[in-house]
């Protein structure tokens, strides 16, 4: 009997909490999309949610509950007590749409969350499972929102003009009638700020970094993984140690050295220094992978008269291609995103990398939408690569991302 009471309490609590979550999500999302401030009426939301939770328990069809919910929300709204409070100057469409969206996003997930709960078969496990399902739903929405909002704001701000941004910072709706004028910030960056050059510089600096890193780390990793020599364990340990030296500690003497030798403001200096930051991680990742390859194949190669180098070239490397792809992508990402060294060593716009170029936009003279457009330009290529090659990239991240 005590559990039966708990079941009702669970449904009530989860219903109220879920409705609260969804009301906030709907308000924030619609505010960001439309530019009109919407806010949840917390008392109403909690009571509606609690009632919905109880009703869901009593095996009423979910479409019926939804209809009830929508009508009650809209009715309450016309009495100015709607679950989502809107201003007066807002269109009717948005007014009703927000209430309906709240109702839908509350009822359907709620039926899912409470589906295992039944008054005929009450138990501790079912209650816990319901709470876990609630937390999962909540977590999924929470994480998605916190990850997406900064990127959403970044993209939308880059499509605005200065006046629009000052007028209503909340308004991220896109005026499609402007057509190509939407992308004015981008075209200005490419035409007047030399972003085409920065993009190209970043691209080839990253590629060269990948090639140099591989050229150094493949032999090194092979030696550590396969060959017996005194001091191999000391060597692999010092790789990890070097990996932990903070860049800012090195950046200072490197800055002095480059100032004295004239390597500052040169791409050569940059491609000299980037691989050194990536070789330890590449070595570490590759030697782990080489160790996992069966040695017998290589031995067969050796028996058939191949030299060591030929074995590496004809047997080990082809087998290690997936690992090479992961390492290359990871190194490319590090080089592409690198900011500190580029910032300290490059002053001349002719040698800027993309990140350095974006940093140069951070001044009071450059409008904010340009800065955000620059941020988008630097983000899009790496995210595209990531999306298309996620499998390799994720492997690279897990293997090498002890470094950050």
């Amino acid at each position, binding site marked *: 009997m005590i559990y039966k009471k708990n079941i009702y309490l669970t449904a009530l609590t989860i219903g109220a909490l879920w409705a609260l979550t969804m009301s906030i999500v709907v308000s924030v999302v619609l505010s960001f999309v439309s530019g009109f*401030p919407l806010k949840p009426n917390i008392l109403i939301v909690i009571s509606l949610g609690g009632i919905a939770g109880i009703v869901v328990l009593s095996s009423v069809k979910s479409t019926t509950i939804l209809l009830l919910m929508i009508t009650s929300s809209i009715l309450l709204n016309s009495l100015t007590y709607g679950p989502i409070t809107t201003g007066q100057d807002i269109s009717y469409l948005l007014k009703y749409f927000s209430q309906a969206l709240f109702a839908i996003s509350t009822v359907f997930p709620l039926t899912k969350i409470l589906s295992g709960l039944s008054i005929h078969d009450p138990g501790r496990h079912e209650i816990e499972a319901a709470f876990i399902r609630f937390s999962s739903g909540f977590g999924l929405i929470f994480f998605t929102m916190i990850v997406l909002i*900064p990127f959403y704001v970044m993209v939308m701000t880059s499509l605005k003009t200065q006046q629009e941004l000052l007028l209503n910072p909340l308004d991220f709706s896109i005026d499609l009638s402007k057509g190509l004028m939407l992308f004015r910030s981008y075209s200005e960056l490419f035409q007047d700020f030399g972003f085409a050059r920065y993009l190209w510089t970043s691209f080839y600096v990253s590629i060269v970094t990948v090639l140099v890193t591989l050229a150094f780390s493949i032999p090194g990793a092979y030696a550590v993984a396969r060959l017996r020599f005194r001091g191999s364990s000391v060597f692999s340990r010092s790789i990890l140690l070097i990996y932990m030296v903070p860049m800012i500690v090195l950046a*200072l003497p490197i800055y002095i050295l480059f100032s004295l030798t004239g390597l500052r403001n040169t791409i050569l200096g940059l491609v000299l220094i980037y691989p050194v930051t990536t070789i330890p991680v590449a070595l570490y990742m590759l030697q782990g992978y080489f160790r996992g390859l069966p040695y017998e194949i290589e031995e067969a190669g050796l028996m058939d008269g191949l030299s060591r180098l030929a074995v590496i070239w004809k047997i080990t490397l082809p087998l290690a291609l997936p690992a090479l792809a992961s390492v290359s992508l990871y190194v490319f990402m590090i080089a592409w995103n690198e900011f500190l060294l580029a910032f300290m060593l490059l002053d001349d716009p002719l040698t800027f990398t993309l990140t350095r170029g974006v940093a140069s936009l951070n001044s009071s003279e450059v409008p904010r939408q340009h800065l955000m457009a620059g941020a988008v330009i630097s983000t899009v290529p790496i995210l595209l690569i990531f999306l298309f090659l996620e499998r390799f990239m994720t492997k690279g*991240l897990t293997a090498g991302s002890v470094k950050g």
Partner: protein
Amino acid sequence: MQKVPPSGLGPLGKREERFAWSMLLPTIFLVSLIIILPLCAIFWISFKPISLADLRPPTVLIKEQLKGPINSAGDAAKIRYRIRNSSQTKPLNDVTISDTIPNSFDIQSIDDRCSFDETNLIYCIIGVLEGGQREVIEAEVLVKDSFFGSEKEYKLSEPSTSSVGDNILTNSELTFENFRKIFDSEEFITVILTTLFYTVFGTVGAVVVGLFAALLLNINFRGKGLVRGLYLFPYVAPVIAVAFSWINLFDPFSGSVNNLLLQMNVLTSPINFFGQRPNALIMVTVFEIWRYFPLSFLFILARMQSIDTEMYEAADMDGASPLQKFWYISLPMLIGIMSILFLLRFIWTFNKFDDIFLLTGGASGTRTLTVNVYEQAFAVSNIGAGAAVAVVIFIFLLIFSLFFFKFFSKEEGL
């Protein structure tokens, strides 16, 4: 005769060893050139009274002029050299000048410090040139006929100079001034505390939030792959892009978050998220968690998916509730990877520079040790003090690594 196995390395073993070292040599060379050498340099510099201006060493500046009315051959004229030390403070030693005067001039007399020969090569020994000191050297000459001939004949050649400056980087002057300065300042304790706050909360936060994200993605649902990719965005995107969009988002005047909260009546006046104590420190820590939770979640998820499902089945048979299964099965299995993550992330967060530098520039109580290196070296232009802070960081780091290796050798599997 008793047979014994060969001791030491055979010829093949030696060959293999030599081959191994030859493969490692390029890497060792490059890494020591760009990591070990600078590390030694930073120790050296930290004992040096050196500022940013010292990176441009003083030189002799020289100007040459032909003076006097020259109308016809045989007129007297003067060739004047004005020399100056480019530095206002640092002296230059052993300053010399040499120049060849064109053949169209006949040298009559010259400054005492100089000599000349028949090829009209003059050579002057000036000696010490104090900071900012100026000198003038004059030679009296007669103009020859050829002066009025071709252009080549009267054009003065570029004089050359030599000098020995006292290079602050290489001289033996050592001082504890830098360390005294950074340890004496009241700010230093604040910097250490800020660093600790940022590091501890940033690391713990990222690992805990990562654990939650991993728990979420351990459930099967449609679009899981997409969500997993999405959650890695903060880590994959360039720090500069996400840092600026955070600043933009949380701007006190035109930021969307403040506007939203104001219009929802949650706030009565805007919050200055990045420009006020203690908000700024909390915000940079939150940013750190936001940016690095993907890493922990990736690691933890990988570990979770390798846990044997039979254990959960056994627990189900025994009637364990979902929370019990998490607490008594999953969590103990994850403690290992989480502590490794914690140690690694601790070191990396401690080393982090870009994030805080971009978000606040170290203002409003967010100056950590790494930001302090930059502040001292470039904002205050005292490279020596910057290096001293870097040495402090390095010592901290050595201590952490000792811990790490002690732990790491026990916990295989990373």
